[in-house]
Each structure stands twice: as C-alpha cells, then as structure tokens.
C-alpha cells in the first residue's frame, strides 16, 4: 500500500514539475505572432536584412530578435505600438540561440519591432563546379537557416530572399516547398509558414533551411548559343541534302 502511494506521489510530482516548467518558460519567453525576414540586395555581394516581428514582451519586459547571422550588423531598429527603452540591444540567449533583446516601456502591450541589418557577402559565396566535374562557372550559393527557439512557436513565419538585379536562381537544394517571383527588377524566393487551425506556422525547434545557387544572366552566352545552334542547323541542312535524294 505504502509502495503504491509512493509511486502515485512521485508521478504527481513529475507531472506537476513538467507543467510548472512549461508555464514558467512560457512566462519568461515572448509570444510571437509573426516573424518576417526579408533579404534585399544592396549590391551584388551584400544584403540588407529587414526583420519585422510582432510579439508580446516576456515577463521581464523584453522583446527579441534572433541573431541568425553572426556577421550581420544592426543598423536601425523601430518599434510600433510600444516604446523601446533603449535602441541598443542586450545580448541574450533563448535556449542555445543568440538573441538581441530590447526592453520596452510597457511590458503588457504587444510590439511590432522592425530592425534592419547589414549582411556582408550574403550573395558572394562561390559555388563553381568541383574539380574533375562538369558544371557552370560564375555561380554563387545562398544559404540561410532559421530555427524557432521559443517554446510557444511562431504563428506565421516568412522568409523572402531577393536576388541582385540580373541574377536568377539556378538550382534549389532546400526547401522543398517555396514560391518564386519577381519584385521590380529582382527575382525572389519566398518561404511562407502560416499557422492554421490552432497549429503554429513554425513550431518549437522546427527549422526553415534555404539553400540555392544563383547565376547572373549572360547575354553573351545566349548569343554564342544562337550562333552555335544556327551553325549546326545550317550545316545539317546543307550537307545532309543527299539524304532527301536517296
């Protein structure tokens, strides 16, 4: 009998501690309604990353942006619907993910935080064919990864990567589902993770991986292809006439 009571008590303690941890964790962490990242090219190498996050501050009155790229330099930050105490962020961690934390004046009010970062060499990682293999030159690899570190997940996450002018996507290794389009003179890839029916768009510890190769449009190459194709066509038409006479 005593043994049974002991087991029941232990189980109750375990369940309570798990539940309490979750509640405490949720209170300590911000609640994200949306998290939108847009990479816009400044030139053929560098990008400007604009993050727009709609979130409810945590118990300590902090709102967060995730430092997914170490080399990114914060240029500007703005807050709507609330006031930032200081525009200089504090470096914190949620789980193992580095964050930039901004203290807000009213910790009860949601914030729409908009920050811009300079991301050097975002479009300039060379991806030419490996030695002893066939493949095009003048290609660059664009890769980015975002993992949701907050326990409550993110309701809507979107990532848009615009390419430098005259560049186009050659191949896509990841993700599996994406949209391609054009905005002005820039082609882009869009990954949209919208929540539906109570399910978060991006759950806790879920990742969005983007990995693709870009290439500059090449008018000279197109001219050469036309010359070669017309040359082949003419040669066959002229020298293959005997075939008709057979």
């Amino acid at each position, binding site marked *: 009998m005593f043994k049974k009571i002991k087991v029941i008590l232990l189980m109750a303690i375990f369940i309570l501690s798990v539940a309490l941890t979750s509640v405490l964790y949720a209170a300590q962490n911000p609640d994200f309604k949306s998290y939108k990242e847009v990479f816009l090219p400044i030139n053929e190498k560098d990008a400007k990353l604009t993050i727009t996050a709609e979130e409810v501050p945590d118990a300590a009155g902090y709102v967060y942006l995730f430092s997914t790229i170490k080399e990114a330099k914060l240029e500007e930050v703005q807050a709507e619907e609330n006031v930032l105490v200081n525009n200089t962020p504090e470096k914190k961690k949620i789980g193992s993910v580095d964050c930039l934390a901004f203290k807000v004046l009213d910790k009860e009010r949601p914030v729409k935080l908009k920050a811009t970062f300079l991301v050097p060499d975002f479009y300039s990682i060379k991806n030419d064919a490996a030695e002893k*293999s*066939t*493949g*095009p030159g003048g290609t660059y690899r664009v890769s980015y990864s975002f993992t949701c570190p907050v326990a409550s997940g993110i309701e809507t996450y979107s990532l848009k990567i615009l390419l430098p002018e005259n560049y*186009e*996507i*050659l*191949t*896509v290794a990841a993700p599996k589902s994406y*949209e*391609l*389009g*054009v905005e002005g003179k820039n*082609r882009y890839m869009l990954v949209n993770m919208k929540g539906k029916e109570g399910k978060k768009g991006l759950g806790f510890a879920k990742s969005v991986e983007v990995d693709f190769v870009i*290439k500059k449009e090449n008018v000279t190459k*197109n001219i050469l*292809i*036309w010359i*070669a*194709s*017309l040359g*082949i*066509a*003419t040669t*066959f*038409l002229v020298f*293959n*006439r005997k*075939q*008709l006479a*057979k």
Partner: protein
Amino acid sequence: MNIPTARMEGKEKTNFEKWLSYLGVPIAAIVFALLFTMRTPTELTLQGKSAIAVFLAVFVLWVSQAVPTFVSSLIAIVLLTLTSAWDEKSVLGVFGYDVIWLMISAFIITSGMTKTGLANRVALWLVSTFGKTARLALISLIIVNFVIAFIVPSTTARAALMLPIALLVAQAYGAQPGKSNFGKLIMIQELQVNNISTSAILTATAPQIMAVGLIKDLTGYNVSWSEWFIASLPVALCTMIISYLVGLMIFEPEVSVPVMEDRGNDGIGKLKEQLRKMGPMTKEEKKALFIFCLTVFLWATDKWHVQMFGFKISLVMVAIISATLFYLPFIGLISWKDTKIPWDLMIFSAGAYAVGMALDKSGAAAWALKAVFGSLDLGKIGFFPLYMIVIFIAIFSHLVFTSKTVRTAILIPAVIGIANAAGINPIALALPASFTIADSITLPPHCKPNLIFYSTGYFNVLDQFFYGMIVLIGKWLLLGIASLTWFKIIGIC
C-alpha cells in the same frame, strides 16, 4: 528462335520520314536555342528552363529519327550536364537505376529461356493454340496481360514477364524489328495494355493508392477497391478495345498467319507437329521453367515477403536473382556469350530517363502543370466543359512527368482545389482524374514498361507517340461519355 535485337536499320523510309529526318537536327537546335535563351519564367528556376529546353530538343530528335535514338540520349546526357538541368553525378547515375537493371535482367531471363528451348516450346504452344491468326495472337496477348495485372501488382514486373512471350510470338509470325507492322502492334499494344489495365485495378500501381489517400485526406471520401474497379473497369476495357482497333488501322499487320503456315498448306498442323517433335521437356527446360516460375512467384507475393522470409525482396532484386540463377554453375543454363542485351537501347533508356528525371527534379513538370491549371479560369464554366478540360490536362500531363508519384501528388490536390472553387463534388473530378494516372503510353521514358518494350527495337518513338496520342484521345472521349452515363449511374458524377 533468337532474340531480335536489331534496330531500325535497313528500313525503307517514306518521304515524310525522310523530311522529318532531314529537318530533325536543325529544328532541335533551334528549339533548344529558343527555349534556353529565353527569359526564365518568374516561377521557374534556370534549371527547370534548361530541362524543358533539353527535353523538347531531344523530343524532336526522337520523333524525327534524325540521329539514332541512343545518340539522341548521349546528346541529352551532355546537354543536361552542360546546361545544369541536372548535375553530372545524378545524370550519370541513371545507368545504375533499377529500371536499367530490370531491363538487363529481363533480357538475361529471355536469353536463358530461349537457349534452353523453353521459350520456343511456349511460343509454339501459344501460337498453335490461341494465335492461329495474327489478330487472335494480339487478342490473346492483350487478355494475358490484363489477367496477370490481378496477380502481379507492378506494371514493370508485368512488362518484364510479357517481354519474352511477346518477342517469341512476334518471331513466330516472322516479324522483323523496325520493319514489321505486326511486331510494332504486339510491342506497343503490350505497353498500352500494361498501363491501361493498371487503371482498372486500384492496387496495380502505388500512385493510384496514393491518389485515393489524397482524395480521402482532402475530401474525407474513402474510395474502396471495388468502387474504383466498378467505376474504372468499363473505361479501361473500352480503351483496350480502342487500342486494339486503332492499332489495326494504323499498323495493318503484314501477316495473318504464322510464318510456317505460309510455307505449307497446314501451318498450324506443322507447328503442332514441331511441338510434338520437341518431345518431353528437357532437364534444361525444366530448370528454366523453375526459374521463371520462381520469378513470377516472388513478384506476385511481394506483400508477404517479410512474413515468408523475414525480409523484403524488391522487384528489381527478384529479377537480378533470376538472372543470376541462369548463370550459376550446376543450376545455370547460359554463358555470357548466349546473352543478348541491346546495349544501344540501354544507353537510350538511361539518357531518356535522365531527361524525364530532370523535368521532375527541377520542378519544371510541376510548374508546367500549375501554369496550365492557373491560366484557365475554370470556375466560371459548367460541369461538363470543366470536366473535359480537367480530364484532358490530367491525361496529357504525363507528357512532362516521368514519375507517376510526383504527377499524382500535384494533380489530385489541384483537381480537388478546382472542384471546390467551382462548387462541384470533388469526387466527380478527382476520381476520373485518378483513372488517368497510369496513362503514360506516349513516349519511351514516361514509364518503365515503355522502355522495356521499346528495347525490343520493333517500333520507333514516332510510332509509339502517334499511336499513343490517338488511343489517349479515345480514352478522353470515353471518360467524357462515362461522366454522362456510367459515372452517373454509379453515383460518381
């Protein structure tokens, strides 16, 4: 009897074919340049655009026969790699795909059956019993192909099974590869019936099961095996009849009786006499029969392999096991010298399959299908026109897809979405669209059975394309008629 592996050489070309052949390379070159240098559509990658350019250029070469088909495949392999339509490792890796191994194994099995005389015995029996005329031979092969669809749940395995029988019946009628209309008919009808009979049986190919799963997930309606069978069988049977009749019209057989019969007054009697002269089955024939039966048994029982052996043997591995048995000492029946494998067509198959895979992997096929659906304002038209447009797209979407699975995954949700937007019962569109999943009969690389029968060398790409398109138009009209009659009676439409 020897396995015919000769290609289309030596055949007298018609004027139309001469012109096609003359213009093939110039047209292919211009098609390639035009597509490759055009601005990439915004929703497509450069890889996708390149894959489309290579596919269409090579398609022109296949159809025009301007260069031997294996050369067109080599061109495709080079172009795919140079244009980045698919990476070099993947393109070259196609030669290691199961379809190539399956074809090699099928030819080894056929060689073994021929060397031992078993194939001769089967062919003599088949022709003297059922194939007294060319038409009867065609009908009996169609029936055999349809019946085994219930036993062997794989289009590819069925094709490999039917290959030696079809080859030997063709030989019994003296059909020469590339020259004989009867040979063309046998081989193309075999691949057509293989695919069409599949559409009648839900479990005959995995993508059909996937389609039913998607219908259930997206509409909540569970299509049972019998519902599928009842709805699809009349359409499949009528399509097979159309295939048979259209075939006779396009490729009128040059023979009406087996070749031996032409040489004497009582040909069938002579065939029977020859069969009698063969005497009882030899030890070698019994061994070959055992290997053949073992192959059929393993293919037919793949669902229960784990229970029987504790592991599963794939379709291709069964074929390789059988091929190995033919070579093994003590058991074995043939040497490498006896093996006749058409390597030129293996190269063709690898290149053609690579082009198809590039279309799938680059997203070009999915883009093309979405672009077609997206460009049509289907919500504002009535049910019947909408039904006919959707079914037309569903049937002919196989032209850009090699993978039935990928096609199903894109097609069925899109069709259900259209039905919902138009406010009609999604089953009325999605189920008939699912009956078209196995309709990949127009080009060799569209599915494995096509490649297996193409590898016999009896027909060219243009023959298959032209015949296949007419049959599919017939099936489209049949599905249209079914929507007004049969599908209404059974409550689908």
